[in-house]
């Protein structure tokens, strides 16, 4: 392998994935101060985020606001808030949003690259890289309901996408435990979105 071409190709790949995912990552604000992230899921204005970003059930505390990557600030309506899974689905009144592509959270291999997007400490559009800590999915021996990644999350990443090397969303960043980043699998988030659509 050539000594300089590969790192350059890696860097441009990484930049391409980051550019695409930033378009699909939004800032979610609830109750003035709480800032988290969200993922544009499908074309009908649906956004997936974490329930704890909305605080409470998300209804009593007033409508959350969503800031898109292009700067638009939109009022969102809460469609679903599952505090046990730490997931929420909100809808904004916009149809033309750049949806994230969704990957398969059930076939992650330990050691494969993952990227996380969001707004850590309010820093917009940040990307962090890491690897899958332990395989997850129905056949994995670990039995963890979360995707665990050797990757550094910070407050503000919550609700943002965790993706594979192709930039496909495999999880929703939810918390840090024992130095590991935990994400709700995209399969769980996808099922909640489907329930919202069915209603």
């Amino acid at each position, binding site marked *: 392998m050539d000594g300089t071409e590969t790192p350059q*190709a890696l860097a441009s790949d990484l930049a391409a994935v980051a550019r695409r995912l930033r378009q699909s990552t939004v800032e979610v604000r609830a109750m003035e101060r709480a800032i988290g992230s969200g993922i544009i899921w499908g074309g009908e204005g649906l956004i997936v985020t974490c329930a704890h970003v909305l605080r409470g059930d998300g209804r009593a505390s007033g409508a959350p606001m969503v800031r898109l990557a292009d700067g638009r600030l939109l009022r969102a309506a809460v469609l679903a808030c599952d505090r046990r899974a730490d997931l929420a689905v909100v809808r904004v009144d916009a149809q033309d949003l750049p949806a994230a592509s969704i990957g398969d959270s059930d076939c992650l291999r330990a050691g*494969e690259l993952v990227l996380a997007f969001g707004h850590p400490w309010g820093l917009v559009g940040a990307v962090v890289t890491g690897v899958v*800590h332990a395989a997850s999915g129905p056949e994995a021996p670990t039995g963890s309901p979360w995707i665990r990644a050797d990757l550094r999350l910070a407050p503000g990443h919550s609700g943002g996408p965790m993706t594979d*090397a*192709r930039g496909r969303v495999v999880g929703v960043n939810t918390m840090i435990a024992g130095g590991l980043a935990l994400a709700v699998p995209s399969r769980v988030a996808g099922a909640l979105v489907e329930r919202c659509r069915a209603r």
Partner: protein
Amino acid sequence: MQTLVSLSNDLASAVERAARAVVTVHARPRLPSTGIVWRSGLVVTAEHTVRLESDLRVTWTDGQSAPATLVARDPGTDLAVLRVVESGRPAAELGDSGALRTGHLALAVGYGPRASWGVISATGGAWRTWRGGDVDRLLRVDLVLYPGFSGGPLVDASGAVVGLVTSGLSRQLELAVPATTVSRVVDELVSRGRVSRGYLGVGLQPVALTEAFKRLAPGAGLGLMVVSLEPEGPAARAGLLLGDVLTALEGTPLHDPGDVTAAIAGRPVDSNVRVSLIRGGSPLDVSVTVGERPSRKR
């Protein structure tokens, strides 16, 4: 996109390849540690994680488990060797730890298997651990050693095992024992049951030499005064006395008690070493037969 995806696949394959020789070591209460099948039937782990002497078990990543017995341990390099009855399991595929350079991608694999990634953050020459063991090469890694990772393999991007990670050799730094050192220590532990180290049995205190002393020992740096003597130790048997001031070892001037430890530890037991010293105002050469360092009481 293809380069990033192929790197991702390579890393996952590297973890899979290394994980075939990774076991869970149940050798202490509560938190297990990680072990590597170094050779057929021999598992290496971090010595500080082996707290039980009997009823040891190892578990492969497929869930199969086998009893293990402790062969021997070397606290100096924080390595312990276990024997498992289970045969037919693949041993670790070893890579060239000497070829590692600062900045190389590296993975640590813990039981499970679980992965942690980073880079080789520094390399250096041979060094001695705080527990007195000799390590062929300094390998400092920039990756997180999660609980239970000690004893697991340090893996290069191809999945070859280039070292063993442990938190037992430094409080602050993430370090790995290079594969060459692990192989050497495993050989010694299996054949002799211990890693023998040369030993004089003296306690030394650095002292500044006066001009008169410097005339007696030309080229000497500091003097090292004998402040304690192990009874019946190698130095005592050779006739060294409290108050002797050591100036050179085999003609090499001494500057620090560590110089003596470094020179003696690597010498074969029962070899003779010429110690230059000053006693009662006159220089003197004494031949000392190097003894073997007694093993630490646990």
